[in-house]
């Protein structure tokens, strides 16, 4: 369970990105966060694993993120897999090496130093690759893959952590519509099959409608909508966006 209590984020430059957020996300939920760019979606996601200077209280399965020491933060992060808009793969390294990065916090320091990965970690990495269906590319350079394949490697890296929570920050924003749907389906399936709590930032409303269960709308760093995605109507979106919906807000609209 993730619980935000009066959580705020002010960046060193003075930019207030999140103000007084109260939220509870139960285990196994599939949550989609929408909002304009700059509304605080990324910040909300990153306050879960302590990547941003957050005040108030954020607890992850009972562990407090705010004011946690370095090693406490590391322990929290071990259970949280993250997926990025730009994939954040090491292009020169093999897919396998990238997926194994998810295991770094679990292996002894000397083993990672010498690159002597235990067999069970390799097995976990291969299983993760199988789950996203690109195990045959395991020994290919990451930079040689297409965008969609790279993002699946990103998902596999998160899965290799054997996480309880997955945070996905605009996972399809750099992908074409067809691949976007594939990646979203992968995430949905993983959530259902493994029961991993999944929180996704999305820009496109139709993708949010098609795959989300619970929808959280952010505007100017505050939660302005929180409810079942089936109940949401165009007025709610107008409230979240502060304007009418345009084709740019839809994946299909943007594609045409």
């Amino acid at each position, binding site marked *: 369970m993730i619980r935000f209590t009066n959580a705020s984020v002010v960046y060193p430059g003075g930019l207030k990105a999140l103000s007084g957020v109260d939220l509870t996300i139960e285990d196994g939920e599939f949550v989609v966060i929408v909002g304009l760019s700059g509304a605080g979606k990324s910040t909300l996601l990153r306050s879960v694993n302590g990547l941003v200077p957050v005040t108030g209280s954020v607890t992850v399965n009972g562990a407090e993120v705010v004011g946690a020491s370095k090693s406490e933060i590391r322990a929290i992060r071990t259970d949280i897999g993250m997926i990025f808009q730009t994939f954040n793969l090491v292009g020169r*390294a093999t897919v396998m090496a990238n997926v194994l990065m998810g295991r770094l916090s679990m292996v002894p320091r000397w083993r990672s130093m010498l690159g002597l990965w235990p067999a069970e970690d390799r097995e976990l990495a291969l299983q993760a690759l199988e789950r996203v269906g690109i195990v045959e590319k395991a020994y290919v350079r990451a930079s040689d893959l297409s965008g969609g394949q790279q993002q699946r490697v990103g998902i596999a890296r998160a899965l290799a952590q054997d996480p309880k929570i997955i945070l996905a920050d605009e996972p399809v924003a750099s992908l074409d519509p067809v691949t976007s749907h594939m990646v979203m389906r992968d995430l949905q399936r993983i959530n259902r099959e493994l029961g991993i709590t999944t929180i996704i930032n999305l820009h496109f409303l139709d993708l949010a409608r098609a795959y989300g269960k619970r929808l959280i709308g952010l505007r100017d760093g505050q939660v302005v909508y929180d409810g079942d995605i089936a109940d949401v109507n165009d007025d709610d979106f107008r409230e979240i966006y502060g304007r009418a919906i345009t084709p740019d807000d839809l994946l299909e609209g943007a594609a045409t």
Partner: protein
Amino acid sequence: MTSLAQRPLAPTQSRQFTRPILAAIGVAAVASVAFSIPLLWGALIGLALFAGLALADISRATIDAIVLASVGAAAAWWFDSVLDGRSAAIELLISLRAGLGWLVVGATVGAILVLRRPTVNPVAVPVTAVSAYLATALMSASGASVGVLADLEARQLREGILQVLGAPFHLVIGLSVVAVALAIVFGYLAQSAAVPGVVGSALFTLVAYNLVGFSVAEIVAETSRVGDLAREFWPPQWTWPKTIGSEPTNVIIEPMIETLQIAVIGATVGCLLAIPLAFFASRPTTPTEPTYVAARWILSVLRTIPDLFWAALFASAVGFGALAGALAMIMFSLVIMAKLFSETIDSIDAGPLEAARTSGARYTQVIQYGAFPQVLPTYVAYALYIFELNIRASVVIGVVGAGGIGRLLDEQRTFFQWDRVMAIVIVIFAAVIVIELFSIWVRRRLL
């Protein structure tokens, strides 16, 4: 008829200031040669400065002329009285003290500029002052260091007997002040650093040229007796007795191998030690801000110490021999590698680092898995390059007792055995070329 848009004026060209500068320098030159009485030549230099300002349309006020002339006279008087009565060689510190008057002259010129042209930044005053001061201090010091001012009598200075660059001493000083101060003024007007930059460089070249005793004539003269010189070096003597009375043997190869070994050790250890320092000294990978600043400073400071200084220092600490040489080469490689490598790391993609961090990895793991693969090929290329540099550098460290072929080279040149020196140089040349070809070959296959 359509109305034409108004044509813009050409931006201020530095060329338009050439005439005033040359005119002012001319006035100062004539004046200084004619009169060597301090108050007089100082006043004339002040007037020359005024002429420059007037020709550039900055000031035509009589009061400015009077102020400049009096400040100039005072500066010259001070200059003369500090140097007065010294029969020993003038030292740098005395030069610095004697030039203080010109600081005031420079400040006056800057002040007139700022007063008459309100758009000019008031910083111009100290800039002009310090530049004029440095110019005179350098000029007089350059005279001092080559000993022109040795056994100087104040009378000689006054009578203009003393020569720097073939001209009377005070003329050189006056011209420097005029050239530098006016160049700065026009630099401000043209809003370009090029004018003062070029004038300053030219003056410094004169100083330096004079100081190092450079002489084209000597080069020409030596070239004409190149045959005699060649006979000293040729034919190279490949073998000679190691100790007096023993059979002549080839004593070059063994120290050359020692040099290679020193280079290998230096490059390997230095490049390894450079890795952590480089990651600390790069923005994306530094653990904390203080670490970053400290690493940068350490690198900047270590970079200023030349290879042979390291060798001399280590030789004095751990004794003469290969150990001192290896240590020196380690420092040499470490500094260059850390600098080059940290610049490469600065430009890496921070995404994988974030990905590693969010999975809960420790600092060393983030670096090893997120950053290192990105920069590995560049690292290898740099390591080979540094190995090449090491060969060249390790050849010479023996001169200060740090082992290798340099020791032999120094020994033979001390005894003027130029034919043996030639043999050693040929061996060095061959080794360097072979290593370079090898390194190029490897790099081509790697990348």
